[in-house]
C-alpha cells in the first residue's frame, strides 16, 4: 500500500506556512537569534523563538470561525492548532472530523511550561499530561478518535511519521495527521545549559568550529493518506516509502561512537523502501552541532555508503525543536523535492567531522527525487524515514 503526503505546514520564527519557511531557507535566513536575559534564561542564549504577539494574533484570527471553543489554549496547543488549520486550508479534501482520520502528536515535553508557578494556576493540573494536550487539540477539530502520542526524545517526529505510515497500511484509517510540536521553556533551556550543550553563537552543524546546539520552538504537521484522491497534486506525488527506528544500546545521553545504531535504522529504512544507497539524492541530517552527535552521524552515513550524497542540517535555521524537529525537517525535504532545490547549511564553513561527508554549503538547484531524513536522540534512539517523489505524466 502507498502512503502519500496530502498537506503540510511549518510554524517557526521564519513563517507560519511551509512556503513562507521554504522561501526564507532558500535565501539562507536563519530564525535563530541572540536573546538577552529573559524568562527563558538569566544568561543570553541563542535560540529560535516564535513571537508571542504574532502567534496570539494568528490564533485569534482563526478562532473567529470556531465559536464553540471557549476554553483557554496554551502556547503549545495554539501552535499545533494553527499548524493543523493551515494543513486543512491548503487541502480542503481532508476531513479532520471523520472517523477515518487520526491525530498522531509528537512532543517531548508538551505543556511543560505549566509546571512553572506563573502558569500553574491558570490551567487544570492534568493539562501537563501529554495525552490531555493531544485530546484538547483533537477536540478543537472535533476529531472523534483517541489521539496517539509519541514521546521518544529527539526522534519523536521522524518516529511519528513512521507510525502514521504503519497505521495507514493497517487500513483502520485513511488519513493520519502527524503533528510535532515543542516550545522553548526555562525548563528545557536550563537543562541543556546544565549539560553545557548550548553554543554561545548560532549552531554550526558539521563544522570544524562547532561547539553546541541552538534550541528552538516550532510545529510541523504532515497529513498522510492512503487514498490518492485526497492528495492535491496528482501529477507530482510524495510517498513515504520506508522508515525504521533503532537503539544504540550504548549510553543514555551520549551518542554511540560507532554510529551502528543509526546505520541500522538507515539500512532497515532503505531496505523497506527498496532503494540502494547510490540512488539516494539527498539526506536531511540530524546535525545538532554537538561534537559527538555530528561525528557519530558522519560515521553512520559513511558506513551506509552515503558519504557522497548531498546532506544538510537545518538546526542552524530552526534551532533544535525537539519533538517538532523530525516533522519540520521532513517538510523542508518534501519541499526540496517539489522545488528541486537543496538548502545550504547555515553557518557551515569547513567540514570537521570524523568521516568525510558531503555537506551542502550554499542553496543550489538539483534534481531531488527522494529524501532520506535521519535523527538521533537521548536514550540512544535513532530513526530514519525515506520520501520518494513520483511524477505521473
Amino acid at each position, binding site marked *: 500500500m502507498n502512503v502519500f503526503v496530502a498537506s503540510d505546514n511549518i510554524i517557526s520564527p521564519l513563517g507560519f506556512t511551509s512556503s513562507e519557511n521554504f522561501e526564507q531557507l532558500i535565501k539562507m535566513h536563519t530564525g535563530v537569534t541572540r536573546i538577552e536575559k529573559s524568562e527563558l534564561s*538569566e544568561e543570553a542564549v541563542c535560540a529560535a523563538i516564535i513571537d508571542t504577539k504574532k502567534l496570539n494574533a494568528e490564533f485569534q484570527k482563526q478562532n473567529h470561525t470556531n465559536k464553540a471553543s471557549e476554553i483557554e489554549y496554551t502556547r503549545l496547543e495554539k501552535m499545533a492548532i494553527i499548524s493543523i488549520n493551515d494543513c486543512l486550508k491548503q487541502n480542503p479534501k481532508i476531513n479532520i472530523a471523520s472517523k477515518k482520520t487520526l491525530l498522531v502528536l509528537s512532543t*517531548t*515535553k*508538551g505543556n*511543560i511550561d505549566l*509546571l*512553572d*508557578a506563573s502558569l500553574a494556576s491558570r490551567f487544570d493540573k492534568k493539562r*501537563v*499530561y*501529554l*495525552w*490531555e494536550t*493531544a*485530546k484538547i487539540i483533537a477536540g478543537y477539530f472535533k476529531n472523534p478518535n*483517541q489521539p*496517539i*502520542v*509519541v*514521546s*521518544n*526524545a529527539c526522534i519523536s517526529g521522524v*518516529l511519528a511519521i513512521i*507510525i502514521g505510515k*504503519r*497505521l495507514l*497500511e*493497517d487500513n*483502520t484509517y485513511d488519513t493520519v495527521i502527524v503533528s510535532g510540536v515543542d516550545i522553548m521553556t*526555562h*525548563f528545557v533551556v*536550563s*537543562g*541543556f*545549559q*546544565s*549539560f553545557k550543550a548550548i553554543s554561545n553563537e548560532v549552531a554550526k552543524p558539521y563544522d570544524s568550529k562547532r561547539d553546541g546546539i541552538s534550541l528552538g520552538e516550532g510545529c510541523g504537521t504532515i497529513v498522510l493518506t492512503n487514498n490518492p484522491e485526497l492528495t492535491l497534486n496528482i501529477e507530482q506525488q510524495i510517498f513515504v516509502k520506508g522508515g*525504521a*527506528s*533503532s*537503539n*544504540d*544500546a*550504548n*549510553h*543514555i*545521553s551520549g551518542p554511540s561512537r560507532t554510529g*551502528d*545504531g543509526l546505520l*541500522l535504522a538507515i539500512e*532497515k529504512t532503505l531496505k523497506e523502501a527498496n532503494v540502494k544507497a547510490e540512488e539516494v539524492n539527498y539526506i536531511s541530517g540530524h546535525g545538532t552541532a554537538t561534537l559527538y552527535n555530528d561525528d557519530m552521524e558522519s560515521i553512520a552515513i559513511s558506513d551506509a555508503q552515503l558519504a557522497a550524497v548531498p546532506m544538510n542540517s537545518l538546526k542552524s535555521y530552526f534551532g533544535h525543536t525537539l519533538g517538532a524537529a523530525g516533522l519540520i525537517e521532513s517538510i523542508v525535504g518534501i519541499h526540496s523535492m517539489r522545488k528541486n532545490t537543496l538548502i545550504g547549511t547555515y553557518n557551515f564553513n569547513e567540514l570537521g567531522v570524523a568521516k568525510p561527508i558531503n555537506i551542502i554549503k550554499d542553496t543550489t538547484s538539483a534534481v531531488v527525487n527522494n529524501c532520506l531524513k535521519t535523527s538521533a*536522540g*537521548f*536514550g*540512544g*534512539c535513532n530513526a530514519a524515514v525515506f520520501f520518494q517523489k513520483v511524477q505521473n505524466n
Partner: protein
Amino acid sequence: MENKNYISSYCAAKNGEVIVDHTISYSEKTLLSVDFIKSVYKHFQFNYPKFYKMDHLCKLAFVTSELLLKSNPVTQKYSSEDIAIIISNSTSSLEIDTEHQNTISDKGNYFPSPAIFVYTLSNILIGEIAIRNSIKGENTFFIFDKFDPVFMSSYINSLLKSGKAKCCITGWVDFYENKYESFLYTVEKEQGTLKIEHTSEQIKKLYNN
C-alpha cells in the same frame, strides 16, 4: 500462514507485589513506592550499580524488565536488531520533571543538574533496558490516558507480521507522586510456556489480575 502471536512471558509490579508468569514472586506491602522498588532490587540480588543513578521510573522499568527477561531470555533467541521495545504510560517523566523544575524555580537556590535532566524523557527507560540487554531493535514510547491494549496489540501484531521485529518487549510503566505500576510482557510467534494468544482481551485479563 500462521499469523498468531503469543504473550510468552509477563511481569507485573503494583500494590507491593511482583507477579511473574501468574506466580507471585515477591510481596512487600509495608513499603512506599520507591522503597518497594529498591527492595525488589535487593531481594533478587540484581547486581547493576547503574540502578542507583536511575530515576524512579527507570528503576521500576529496570526491576520489571530484569524479572521478565530472566523468565524468558529473549536475547538468547533473537538477534539484537530483531527485538523491539515499545512501552507506554500516562504521566511520561513528570515525576522527575517536577524534580528538575524544583531545581530552577528559585533564583536564589538554582542548581539544575544533568544527572536529573537526562531522565526528563520517558523513553530513557527504553534506553536503560536496551543498554542492559544489548537490544537494538525498534523503540517507541507512547503516552495514553490509560493502558491501551487494543492499540498496543494491534500495532505490535503489525510490527511482527511485517517482519520489522521478531519479538517485542512491551507494556506499561508509570510512576508519579508515589503511585507506581509496571506491566511488561514479551510478544513473539512462539507460544512459550504461557501459551496465551496476543490479543487485546488476553492482555486485559493479565493486566487486570
